[in-house]
C-alpha cells in the first residue's frame, strides 16, 4: 500500500537519470532533490515513516511491485494536498509528480527517436543490422543505468496499456500498408502458412517443452502442460519486420516476400488469440479440471474469435469509408475518422471477446481503398505519416522496454529450459515450414523452392510481440514467469541479433530468385496487358479461377461498393481529379505571382541541371520512368515496397513532379482554349504574351516563351515529339519536359544568342505549320549543322539536337508522318 504514497521520485525517468546521474550515486537523496521542496518534505516524512513501519528498503520493495504503480499517482498529489494545506506560497516550485508519467513517456520516445536518428546518421549501420537491434541495445544501456542506480523502470508496460495503446497502432499500420494485390494473389498460401504455421509452432514447442519438463534432472517439474502451451503460443509469434527490410533491399521474389509479410501481419493475431484462450484455460484450470468439451469449445472459440474479428473489421472499414464520403468540406477531420474507426473496430471486437487485431487489420485493408479516394491529398499524407509514426513509437517503446528489462535481477536462468526453447523454436519452425510448404506447393503453379523455404525458415525472428506477451503473464498463474521471460528474451536476442544480422548475407549467398521490379514503363504496360489477357483467356475457357474471381470482385466493387462508398462528384480515379484541382490552383497561382514559385523551385536545381544537359544521365532516365510510371497509377497502383519504419521518401517528389506535369498540361489546355489553336498562327505570339506578362525582364520573357513553345509542341505535337527515338531526342524530350515543367532556360540558351533563337523560330513554325515546317526544316538542315559545329566545343545546343533528330525522323518518315498528322490537319 505504501506505493501510493511514493512521491514519484522513486520512479525516475532514464533521462533524469542521464542528466543528473551524478546525484544519483546516493539514490534516495538524489531522488528527492528532483522533487518539490515542500512536497519533498512531506514525502520525506512519509517515506521515513514507511521505512520505519515496514522495516525495509523502499526501493527494493518498489521493484517488486511492477504494474500497479501507474494509476494512483495523481491522486497522491491531490490527496496529499488536501490533507496538508500549504503553509506558504513557494516562489519557485517543482512539481515533478504531476507530470511524471507523460514526462517520462515523452522522454522515452524522444530517446528512442534520437537513437534512431543516430542509427541512420551512420549510413553503414542500417545495412549491417536491423533497427530493432539498436533499439534493444539502447534499451539495455538505459536498463543498465537504471539497474546500476537501483531505480525502477517507468511504467510503460502493463497489460492494458499494451493491448489498448501499444499494439493497435502496430497492427493498423501493417494492415494499412499491406500491398493488397500480391497479398490476395497469394492469399491461399499465406493463410495456410501463417495460420497453420503459428498453430504448429505453438503446439509443437509447447508439447516438446512439456516433455522436457518431465525430466526430473532439470528441476522443471512444476511447469505444467498448459503453461508450456502458453509459452509455446507466445514464443511462436514471429515478428519478421527486420527480415522484410532485408528482403526489400535484396529484392527477393514477390511470393516469398508476401509469405513473410503475411506472416508478420497475421501471426500476431493468431498468437494473441491463442494466448488469450490458453490464459482462460489456465485460469479455469486453477479451480477445476479441463474437460474435453472445454477443449472443443476452445477450438470453436478460436475460429469464432478470428472470423468474428475479421467480420467486425470489414464492417467498420465500410462504415468509415462511407463516412469519409461526406467530409469534403471538413477535410481536417478525415484522418481522425480513419483512426477512430479503426480503433473503434479494435475496441468493439475486444469488447465482444473477438480478435481486435484481426478486426483492425481487416478494417484497415477494407477502408484503405475507398478512403484513399475520398480524402483530400493532405489528409491522405497525414494518415500515412501518422500511422507510421504511431506504430514506430509503439514498437520503439516495446523494444526499448525490452532492453531495459533485460538488465536486472528478475531473471530465472534455467539452462535446460532456455536451451531447449531455443532448439525447439528452430526445429519446429523448420518442420512447419517444410511440411506446410510441401503441401501448399502441390497446389501452387509455381512452388516455393527449397531456397525460398530455407529463407522462410531462417526469417523466424521473434520480436516485441513475444516479449510483451511473456512480460504480461499473470504472476499469480505462472510462478515461473521469470523463467519464461528470460527464455523469451534469449530467443528474441538470438533471433534478432544473430538471424537478423545474418539473413541479409544469407539471402545474397543463397542467391534467392530475385524479383523483377525494374520500374519500367514497358514492364508496367506489358504486365497490365498480361492481366487482361489472362482474364480474357480464362473467360474464353469459361473457367472460374483466380483472375476471374478478381475480375468478379472488381465488377461488383465497381457497380455497387464504389457507388455507395465513394463521393459522387469524383471521377473514377480521384487522384487524377485531385491533381487536376491542384494543378489548376497552381497554374493560377503561377500566372498571378509571375511564376515566382516555379523559378524559386528551379534555382536550386539549376546547377545540377546544367551539368546534366549534355547527356541523358541515368537519373534523368529514372525520373522519366518515374513520371511515366506514376502517370499510370490510374491504371494500377502497385505498392509492393513496404518498409515498417519509413515511407518511401520519394513519393512526395514524384507527386510534385506529377503536379508539374499536369500543370503543364493545364497550361497547354488553357492556351488552346483561350487562344484558339496555337498552331496555325505565326510564331505563337499570343502564347508568349500569355505566359510572359508578369515579367519585365526580357531574359525571363524569353525564358517563358521557350517554355510556351515547348509546352506547345509537347502537346499539340506529341506525334512529332515521339517519332524520334534516339538518345538525343530522348534527352531532348526529357529536357523539354523539364523545361516546360520548370521553365528553366538551358545554359546553352543563354549563350546561344541568335542561332539558337533562330532554331526556335524554325521549331515553332514547324509546329505551327506541320507540312510547311517540315519542308522548311528539310531545307534548313545544313544550317543546323553549322550551328552544331559552332557549339561543339561547349555544350551542344539542346534544341539543336532535338531538331536535327526530328528532322531526320521527319525525313525518313514522311509517309507515316503525313498519315499520323492527318487528324491534326483536320483540326485546323
Amino acid at each position, binding site marked *: 500500500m505504501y506505493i501510493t504514497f511514493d512521491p514519484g521520485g522513486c520512479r525516475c525517468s532514464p533521462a533524469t537519470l542521464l542528466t543528473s546521474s551524478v546525484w544519483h550515486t546516493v539514490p534516495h537523496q538524489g531522488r528527492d532533490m528532483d522533487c518539490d521542496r515542500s512536497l519533498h518534505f512531506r514525502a520525506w516524512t512519509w517515506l521515513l515513516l514507511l521505512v520505519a513501519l515496514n522495516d525495509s528498503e523502499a526501493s527494493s520493495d518498489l521493484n517488486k511491485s511492477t504494474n500497479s504503480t501507474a494509476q494512483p499517482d495523481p491522486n497522491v498529489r491531490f490527496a496529499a494536498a488536501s490533507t496538508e494545506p500549504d503553509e506558504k506560497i513557494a516562489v519557485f516550485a517543482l512539481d515533478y509528480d504531476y507530470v511524471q508519467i507523460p514526462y517520462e513517456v515523452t522522454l522515452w520516445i524522444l530517446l528512442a527517436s534520437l537513437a534512431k536518428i543516430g542509427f541512420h546518421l551512420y549510413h553503414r549501420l542500417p545495412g549491417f543490422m536491423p533497427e530493432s537491434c539498436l533499439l534493444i541495445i539502447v534499451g539495455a544501456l538505459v536498463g543498465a543505468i537504471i539497474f546500476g542506480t537501483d531505480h525502477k523502470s517507468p511504467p510503460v508496460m502493463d497489460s492494458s496499456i499494451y493491448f489498448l495503446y501499444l499494439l493497435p497502432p502496430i497492427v493498423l499500420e501493417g494492415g494499412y500498408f499491406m500491398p493488397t494485390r500480391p497479398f490476395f494473389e497469394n492469399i491461399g498460401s499465406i493463410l495456410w502458412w501463417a495460420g497453420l504455421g503459428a498453430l504448429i509452432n505453438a503446439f509443437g514447442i509447447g508439447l516438446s517443452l512439456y516433455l522436457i519438463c518431465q525430466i526430473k534432472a532439470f528441476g522443471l517439474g512444476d511447469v505444467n502442460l498448459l503453461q508450456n502451451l502458453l509459452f509455446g503460443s507466445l514464443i511462436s509469434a514471429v515478428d519478421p519486420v527486420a527480415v522484410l527490410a532485408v528482403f526489400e533491399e535484396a529484392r527477393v521474389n514477390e511470393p516469398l516476400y508476401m509469405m513473410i509479410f503475411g506472416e508478420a501481419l497475421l501471426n500476431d493475431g493468431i498468437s494473441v488469440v491463442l494466448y488469450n484462450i490458453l490464459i482462460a484455460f489456465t485460469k479455469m484450470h486453477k479451480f477445476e479440471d479441463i474437460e474435453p468439451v472445454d477443449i472443443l469449445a476452445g477450438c470453436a472459440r478460436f475460429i469464432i474469435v478470428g472470423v468474428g474479428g475479421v467480420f467486425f473489421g470489414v464492417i467498420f472499414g465500410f462504415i468509415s469509408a462511407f463516412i469519409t464520403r461526406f467530409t469534403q468540406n471538413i477535410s481536417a477531420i478525415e484522418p481522425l475518422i480513419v483512426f477512430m474507426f479503426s480503433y473503434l473496430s479494435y475496441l468493439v471486437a475486444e469488447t465482444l471477446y473477438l480478435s481486435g487485431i484481426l478486426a483492425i487489420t481487416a478494417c484497415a485493408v477494407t477502408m484503405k481503398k475507398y478512403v484513399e479516394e475520398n480524402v483530400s491529398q493532405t489528409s491522405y499524407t497525414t494518415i500515412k505519416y501518422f500511422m507510421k509514426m504511431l506504430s514506430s513509437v509503439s514498437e520503439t517503446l516495446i523494444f526499448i522496454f525490452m532492453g531495459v528489462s533485460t538488465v536486472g535481477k528478475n531473471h530465472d536462468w534455467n539452462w535446460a529450459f532456455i536451451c531447449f526453447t531455443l532448439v525447439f523454436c528452430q526445429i519446429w519452425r523448420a518442420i512447419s515450414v517444410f511440411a506446410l510448404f510441401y503441401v501448399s506447393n502441390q497446389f501452387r503453379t509455381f512452388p516455393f523452392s527449397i531456397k525460398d523455404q530455407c529463407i522462410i525458415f531462417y526469417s523466424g525472428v521473434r520480436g516485441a510481440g513475444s516479449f510483451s506477451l511473456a512480460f504480461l503473464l499473470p504472476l499469480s498463474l505462472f510462478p515461473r514467469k521469470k523463467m519464461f521471460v528470460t527464455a523469451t528474451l534469449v530467443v528474441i536476442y538470438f533471433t534478432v541479433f544473430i538471424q537478423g544480422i545474418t539473413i541479409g548475407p544469407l539471402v545474397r549467398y543463397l542467391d534467392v530468385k530475385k524479383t523483377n521490379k525494374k520500374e519500367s*514503363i*514497358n514492364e508496367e504496360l*506489358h504486365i497490365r496487358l498480361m492481366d*487482361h489477357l489472362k482474364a480474357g483467356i480464362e473467360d474464353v475457357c469459361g473457367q472460374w*479461377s483466380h483472375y476471374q474471381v478478381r475480375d468478379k470482385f472488381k465488377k461488383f466493387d465497381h457497380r455497387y461498393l464504389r457507388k455507395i462508398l465513394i463521393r459522387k462528384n469524383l471521377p473514377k480515379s480521384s487522384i487524377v481529379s485531385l491533381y487536376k484541382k491542384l494543378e489548376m490552383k497552381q497554374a493560377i497561382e503561377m500566372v498571378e505571382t509571375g511564376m515566382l514559385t516555379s523559378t524559386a523551385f528551379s534555382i536550386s536545381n539549376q546547377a545540377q541541371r546544367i551539368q546534366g544537359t549534355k547527356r541523358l544521365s541515368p537519373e534523368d*532516365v529514372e525520373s522519366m520512368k518515374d513520371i511515366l510510371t506514376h502517370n499510370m497509377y490510374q491504371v494500377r497502383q502497385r505498392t509492393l515496397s513496404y518498409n515498417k519504419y519509413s515511407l518511401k521518401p520519394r513519393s512526395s517528389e514524384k507527386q510534385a513532379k506529377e503536379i508539374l506535369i499536369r500543370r503543364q498540361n493545364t497550361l497547354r489546355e488553357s492556351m488552346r482554349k483561350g487562344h484558339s489553336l496555337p498552331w496555325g498562327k505565326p510564331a505563337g505570339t499570343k502564347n508568349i504574351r500569355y505566359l510572359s506578362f508578369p515579367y519585365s525582364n526580357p531574359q525571363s520573357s524569353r525564358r517563358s516563351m521557350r517554355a510556351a513553345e515547348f509546352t506547345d509542341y509537347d502537346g499539340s505535337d506529341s506525334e512529332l515529339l*515521339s517519332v524520334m527515338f534516339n538518345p538525343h531526342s530522348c534527352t531532348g524530350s526529357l529536357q523539354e519536359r523539364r523545361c516546360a515543367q520548370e521553365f528553366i532556360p538551358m545554359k546553352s540558351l543563354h549563350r546561344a544568342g541568335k542561332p539558337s533563337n533562330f532554331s526556335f523560330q524554325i521549331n515553332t513554325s514547324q509546329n505551327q505549320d506541320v507540312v510547311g515546317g517540315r519542308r522548311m526544316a528539310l531545307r534548313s538542315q545544313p544550317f543546323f549543322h553549322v550551328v552544331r559545329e559552332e557549339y561543339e566545343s561547349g555544350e551542344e545546343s539542346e534544341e539543336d539536337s532535338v531538331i536535327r533528330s526530328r528532322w531526320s525522323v521527319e525525313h525518313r518518315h514522311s509517309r507515316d508522318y503525313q498519315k499520323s498528322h492527318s487528324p491534326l490537319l483536320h483540326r485546323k
Partner: protein
Amino acid sequence: MGAAHSASEEVRELVGKTGFSSDQIEQLHRRFKQLSGDQPTIRKENFSSIPDLELNPIRAKIVRAFFDNRNLRRGPSGLAEEINFEDFLGIMSYFRPMDTGLDEEQVELCRREKLRFLFHMYDSDSDGRITLEEYRNVVEELLSGNPHIEKESARSIADGAMMEAASVCVGQMEPDQVYEGITFDDFLKIWQGIDIETKMHVRFLNMETMALCH
C-alpha cells in the same frame, strides 16, 4: 462429351502436341463446343457470346489473337477465318504453366514462345515491329476502361515507353539514327529478367467448374 473429338487416340495425340492433360482437353473441348454451338470450328462472332469478355478492354486483341495466323503457325501474317479445336488448344497452350522439370534450354524456348504470342498482340500489322502507332493503340485500349483518362496521357505513356524501349534496346544511338519500333529481339531484351513463367499462365482446371456461358 461424346463426339468424334474425344476419341481417345485423338486426345492422346493432342496431349502430346499441346501438353495438356486429357482431362483438361476434355474440359476445353466441352467449352469449345459450347462456344461454337456444336460446330467443328469457331468464328470470331462466337466469342461475342462470352459475357465476361465484354468488359475486357483488350477484348478485340484477345479475340484477334485466336485467329492470328502467326499464332496458329499458319503463316507470317493475316487472320484465319475460323479455327478448329486443335487450333483452339494450340492457342490455349501458350498459357500453360511451364513444366517444372524442364532444362534451361527448354525453358528458354518456352519463354520465347510465350513472348512471341505476346509480341503478336502488339504487332498488329505483322511487320515484325511494334511501331509507335501500334504501341499507342495498345495503351489506349488498355486505358479505355477508364473514361477519365485523356487520350493524350495514354499517348504520352506509350511515347515514354517507346523511348524507354529505345534506350534499353539500342543504347547509344548515332545522332541521326532512328528507332523505328520494337523488334522481337528488342522485345526479348525488354522482358529480360522478368520471369514470364510466373506471369503468363492460366490455371487450367481438371475439374468440372465451368462457368455458365449464358
